[in-house]
């Protein structure tokens, strides 16, 4: 039967393609994972503290972790970053929600102008405005501590309304109208109707706001400059790897990296579907 032959050769071609793809995928997974495996191994390496030419530790030990907490200010930095992340995630979410709800739902004079203004302002590199803010904070005395950094993060967070607004736009207006006929004023509509429905985007915004301070080098280094006690983990760990420190601190760096990576990774994995929902702008019903 020639039809069977044709089917079989098609199947063979397909399984050949599949095998090829499997190989590729496994290769890709390996390449992606290797650096992290390397990180973990280095963190547990007992002998020497600098960089070496091999991957597997000859001695497994926890002393890097211990010295990380006892001999460096890592704990301070971790605490700093944690506080910043918690505070910022709360306030930033509140502000972003306020702005995106207003711009999505309400029509008022100057709305277009405001949206264009924010768009244009966003075209300036963020760091540029930070220089000026730094001067101001220095005058007030809020540099070299985490309060200044928190102010910076929260202060202009209203500009990041875009994704949340896109999500709000997908909520049908008929709900607002039904609520208004039922007797709700705009405030009640916001709190009792729209917000409960916006759980995915609220979680997304909070998640993003929480995760950002952990990886921010640019602003944190500016504000904290000069006072190592007010570093966040990014700035602090960066110092481990500069020329004077790296010989003694490389493994501690890896240990620090592991300590930070674990909770963040777990958090992200738990909430990843909200991440996807946010980034694809509700195009994925999720």
């Amino acid at each position, binding site marked *: 039967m020639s039809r069977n032959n044709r089917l079989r050769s098609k199947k063979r071609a397909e399984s050949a393609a599949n095998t090829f793809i499997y190989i590729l995928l496994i290769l890709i997974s390996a390449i992606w994972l290797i650096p992290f495996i390397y990180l973990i191994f280095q963190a547990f390496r007992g002998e020497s503290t600098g960089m070496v030419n091999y991957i597997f530790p000859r001695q497994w030990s926890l002393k890097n972790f211990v010295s990380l907490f006892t001999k460096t200010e890592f704990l301070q930095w971790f605490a700093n970053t944690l506080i910043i992340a918690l505070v910022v995630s709360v306030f930033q979410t509140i502000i972003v929600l306020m702005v995106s709800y207003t711009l999505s739902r309400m029509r008022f004079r100057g709305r277009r102008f405001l949206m264009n203004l924010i768009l244009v302002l966003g075209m300036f590199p963020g760091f540029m405005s930070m220089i000026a803010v730094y001067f101001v904070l220095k005058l007030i005395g809020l540099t070299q501590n985490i309060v200044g950094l928190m102010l910076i993060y929260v202060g202009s967070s209203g500009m990041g309304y875009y994704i949340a607004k896109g999500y709000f736009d997908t909520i049908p207006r008929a*709900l607002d109208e039904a*609520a208004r006929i*039922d007797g709700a004023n705009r405030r009640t509509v916001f709190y009792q109707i729209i917000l*409960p429905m916006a759980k995915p985007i609220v979680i997304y915004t909070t998640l993003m706001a929480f995760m950002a301070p952990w990886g921010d080098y640019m602003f944190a280094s500016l504000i904290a400059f000069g006072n190592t006690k007010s570093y966040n983990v990014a700035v602090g760990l960066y110092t481990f790897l500069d020329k004077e420190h790296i010989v003694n601190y490389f493994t501690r760096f890896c240990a620090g990296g592991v300590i930070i990576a674990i909770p963040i990774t777990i958090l992200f994995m738990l909430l990843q579907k909200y991440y996807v929902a946010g980034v694809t702008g509700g195009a994925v019903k999720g």
Partner: protein
Amino acid sequence: MANLSLKHVYKVYPNGTKAVSDFTMEIGDKEFIVFVGPSGCGKSTTLRMIAGLEDITAGEVSIGDLIVNDVEPKDRDIAMVFQNYALYPHMSVYENMAFGLKLRNLSNEEIHKRVLETAEVLGITDYLDRKPRAMSGGQRQRVALGRAIVRNPKVFLLDEPLSNLDAKLRTQMRSEISKLHQKLGTTFIYVTHDQTEAMTLGTRIVVMKDGYIQQIDTPRNLYNYPDNKFVAGFIGTPQMNFYDAALNRRGDTVEICFLNTDDKLKVPYENFLKVKPEYLSGKKEIILGIRAEKVICDPDYIKKHPEAVVSCTVSHTEELGDETLVYGDLAGKTDVVADTKTSVVFKVDSERGSEINAGDVVKLAFAFHSLHFFDKETDKSVSPRVPEVNAFDGTVENNVLKISGLEFRLPKALETADGAVSAEIPTESFTFTGDQKAACIERETILGNNLLHLESGGRVFFAKTDSDVKPGELKIGLDMKRISILKDSKILHKPLELKNVLYGSVNRKVVKKTVEENGKTRKKKSVEFSLAVANGEYQVPDEMLKRLVTGGGMGVFKKKLRFEFSPYAVRAGKAEGPITGSVEKTLDYGTERFAVVKVGDASVTAKTDAELSGDVRLGIDLNSLVVIDDKIDMIIA
């Protein structure tokens, strides 16, 4: 007392689009009103204006006795069911229904009682703890209804609630809504684009197109007496057959000539009594409309009326079960898939239907009593149910108009030379206190008015009256102000101009007045508002000023306004008012006298007591002025 009233409601968007124009309607208690029309006709917009979800550009909406133009939706005592149900997705059914009640601070027990009662009525008691996403479309719709019912409103508003349901569910929910209306006895206002829904649900239907009301009537009347071609084509399935034609009256029969085929139908004149005479001359193009079930295929009928028969080539049939729809073409063009100007669709019973095949040529007759005629350009019906005008041929002798066995003395204003004339006498212009006699052979009651069929001199004519007149011998007279007299198709006398038009504006002035106060004279500056009408100025009463600003907005002071008023609202005399003009002519109708006064470029017809000439002054009753924004043609007050 009307439960809901809309007066000259307009919705105009800032970019100039007029979504709703001059919507006027009184809706009584317990009525089921349906707004129906194609997409974009303004029906949803009107509903939303009633709800308060859209601002009213001009006009008045009242619920009960209260004008609600500026009242928030929640205070209007209305409830609304949306097309997409708009249920709060994170709340259970119970909470959805309780939401509005909680906002009104009802006690928990009261809320509980009402929700349970309503759930009982709708059969959703078992779903009270479910969330909307766990329910089917029909159930969600019931919850949406429940949320509205539980509020016990004065008016129910429904915006295409069944559009999202499948056909079977739609039919079922339709009857449920109907039963609900019976049970609750509240006024329902329902918006749909589906004319079947409109016809089955409504006590009265409002057909809308492009923002204008086309016709308001009961389903039956809309079906049988459409006012224009749009309503005729919109209502009824299958759609009415339309053909371009012209009518030619030849004595006792009228010839219907089809423009796109060679067929001619000969129909007795008695079926055309209500048709305006100018359409029977063969010179004006009309559109002939006839419904599918009135196109008759029965061979006996066809044998009886051979002069009203056309032939048709069948293209295909649709089997409906108890009857068959047959599609064909009067000119034989059956190979084109789209509709042509000579397509026809008619109904036969299934037995006959099984005999008919594609390609057959059958003979069809049009039922005489069910023909509709529409003016080709304006689409309006030229055989209205309540005709406007009767046309007579007659003579004038010694200023006595002799028509159809009746004699009327012409007043001074209508003095005519002797000779043959034709007269157009509006149906409204007959009085029943005159000295002429006519026999009333029939009385039709249409929409609250009585249409009398009168007979005299061998011909039937019509009179409209709202008084209760019984058939029999009647004494009739004529309101001379309303008739037209023509000679050789030239108008000798026009009817009295009932609508005067003047232009003007409303102005704000700062005046310095010297005022006596406590024995001292003081100069006080105050603001005054005046109404400029043509060349005269009136002081505006406060009520009217408020109405003008509400209707026209704050910018009304800059607008060019058009004032329309009847002759009865204006008096002419030596010192009647601030407007000056000069008399062009006076019209003496015997019992009443009017002066046509030239004011600037316009002519105003005003009632007057004395014989006037030369320069006069006009005084207008401001309360009966209709104020219109001239630029966008919108009634303000």
